[in-house]
């Protein structure tokens, strides 16, 4: 059973806003299109370095592209 990640991302929205295809963004990042699809769908957590590269492609900060839910204070 694959443990689901709590990290979510807005890569698809940023990519579409930038007018980029999955193939184009994957090529710029140096990954396969399948890897980019897996990241967009939350089926693969990228390394920190790749996450920074993705955010940089959209000229955004890491927090603008990747999100992690706040712990509820109790």
């Amino acid at each position, binding site marked *: 059973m*694959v*443990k*689901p*990640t709590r990290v979510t991302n807005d890569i698809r929205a940023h990519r579409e806003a930038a007018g980029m295809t999955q*193939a184009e963004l994957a*090529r710029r990042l*140096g*990954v*396969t*299109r*399948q*890897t980019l699809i*897996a990241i967009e*769908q*939350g*089926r*693969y*957590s*990228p*390394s920190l370095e*790749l996450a920074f590269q993705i955010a940089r492609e959209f000229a955004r900060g890491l927090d603008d592209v990747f999100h992690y839910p706040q712990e509820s204070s109790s």
Partner: protein
Amino acid sequence: MVYQERNTWAGLIVTLIAMTAYVIALLRALGEQPASEIEWWPMMAWTIGISIVAAIAVSIVWGILAGMRDPDGAGRSDDRDRDIARMGDRVGQAFLVIAGLGVIVLCAVRAEPFWVAHTMFFGFAVSALVGGVAQVVAYRRGLV
């Protein structure tokens, strides 16, 4: 399907076919003579050799066919492929350890080489199969 996933599938399919053929041949031999008299070594060596060559051949042919459809991604691998390969190795390694411990026990009780060799041989096979299945599942379902 990416390059490394194709290689994983090729290894899985070839291992499954080779091991099935080997088990059938071995069971036939065991039906005719006791384990200590079976000439198992040539059969095992051929199975290992043919499996390696067949897995490479299937990967190459599959790669050529895939490359004709998608020339850009024909031979590329990335972080995700390496992460999935590492996870598959880790999963499969457990069975190698079990087989290794089995070999130590068999040696301690002075078992015949037939049983020692086959414990290790099937350890390798199960390790490859389980590790391969884990990798395929990770490619299809995700690795997070």
